[in-house]
């Protein structure tokens, strides 16, 4: 092999993308910048507000410190109500999401129509925000924590149902087949063949969703669906920032606690 032949077979240049591919990649980047620029233009952002933003932050901080800790006794009950809304909402979700998950998993659904209905429930539940669900249920049940519980439940069905359905689709089919082969009924196969296999996922997502729901239920009061959000909203409107600070700090404490509980429980599941 002459050096020339050698260089031809073992070139010094290697490119991951062909020139054409490189061009396409730059075109994509340019396109994204273009979209961002277009959004900024259309939003009509009043830039002069940004000029004194640092002063506003400092001012807000001065009003919040020191927090009005005497206000805590009034915040206590709404805070507990918030946790109750999240817990009840999660329990309702658990009861509703399980059957929907079995409907929406390809390997456990009885037929195509039921599968479609299950998927539709999951998608519509997730596509509507908790606050919007709360507005709907406040209109139905009137203001108060009942509306909050249903809003939490309806938003969570999509989340839990989707994750559980995906877990159901990934189970070991052999065990299911073995249970079927003993002459078990459909429900028995689901209960003894499928359910034990997805049980860790069910427990894990339930606790995880409860943790998310505690965070979500803190703002439900903004639209009248109960919890600490009502007080938070009125204190903000009254510019009582020292009270707002107390509420934000206590919400933070509860959220950290729930996250700790959820992480501990999920780590324990085997």
């Amino acid at each position: 092999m002459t050096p020339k032949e050698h260089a031809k077979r073992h070139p010094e240049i290697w490119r991951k993308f062909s020139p054409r591919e490189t061009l396409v990649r730059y075109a994509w980047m340019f396109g994204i910048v273009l979209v961002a620029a277009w959004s900024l233009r259309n939003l009509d952002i009043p830039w002069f507000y940004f000029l004194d933003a640092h002063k506003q932050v400092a001012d807000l901080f001065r009003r919040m410190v020191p927090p009005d800790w005497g206000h805590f006794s009034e915040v206590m009950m709404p805070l507990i109500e918030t946790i109750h809304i999240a817990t009840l909402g999660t329990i309702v979700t658990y009861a509703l999401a399980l059957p929907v998950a079995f409907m929406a998993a390809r390997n456990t659904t009885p037929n195509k129509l039921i599968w479609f209905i299950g998927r539709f429930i999951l998608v519509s539940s997730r596509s509507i925000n908790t606050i919007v669900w709360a507005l709907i249920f406040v209109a139905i049940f009137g203001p108060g924590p009942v509306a909050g519980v249903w809003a939490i439940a309806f938003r969570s069905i999509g989340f839990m149902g989707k994750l559980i359905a995906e877990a159901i689709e990934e189970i070991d089919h052999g065990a299911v087949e073995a249970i079927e082969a003993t002459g078990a009924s459909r429900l028995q196969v689901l209960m003894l063949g499928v359910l034990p296999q997805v049980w860790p996922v069910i427990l894990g997502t339930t606790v995880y969703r409860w943790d998310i729901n505690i965070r979500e239920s803190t703002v439900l009061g903004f639209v009248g669906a109960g919890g600490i959000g009502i007080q938070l909203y009125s204190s903000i409107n009254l510019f009582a920032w020292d009270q707002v600070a107390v509420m934000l700090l206590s919400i933070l404490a509860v959220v950290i606690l729930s996250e700790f509980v959820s992480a501990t429980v999920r780590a324990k599941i085997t």
Partner: protein
Amino acid sequence: MFEVTDLEIQYPNGYKALHGVTLTVSEPQVVAIIGSSGAGKSTLIRCINRLVEPTAGSIKLDGLELTTLGGSGLRKARRRIGMIFQEYNLVERLTVMENVLSGRLGYVSFWRAYRRNFPPQDIQNAYELLERVGLEGRENTRADALSGGQRQRVGIARALMQKPDILLVDEPTASLDPKTSRQIMRLICELAHEFGTPALVNIHDVALAQASADRIIGLSDGRLVFDGKPEDLNEEALTLIYGEEDWSSTIKDDGDDEEEGVAGLTKAKTKAGNGLISEGAAG
């Protein structure tokens, strides 16, 4: 009495897995089914309890036609057919006892099964079977904490909990080491005879099949090509079932009893010699 007549399976893509298999088992015997991978062994066995749907032919268990059953009729028939799987197919996160008792699901209601409230005689029977398969004291162990051989023992107990009229055994030893394979195969054959249950056993290990079964059936390309006693399985038969190969070291020579030891030695020597020669050739 178990009869399969002209059983055929054709998949939607036109491929035929079984071409008219006919087979009768009229006494409680262990029938080993041998044949290459893809010859239709598993398909044949799975047709019987309808995990696979046959497209033509008939399967009769004590006169009951199984191919046309549906719904509760099929579930009732499945209660009488026990099945043991290659990958054991236990519900891993359930205990040994729950897995064994699941053999009775066809006989208890949903709520009794939900509360794990099985009839006392079923529970007693489960304890007896656990002892029989060598797992006494392990009833509360989770299935995923057991070894392969132990899991297969649970699988055997689950199948026998059904008090089946026929046992379907699909490659029971293919995932096990040689020693455990022999123990498991011996256990299955002993129990089949003890319970007077005919057993159809798919198996790849020809020597093990010959040593343990009462009858051997050979499948090739979805056709029955051999049906006889284990001692009738000679090189000619194996060539018919699997194709051309040197079978001299595979089959057990029942003919010359007094020479067996010597013959065995000679074979081992020849084999070792062959191994050496081929190694030398390869190097």
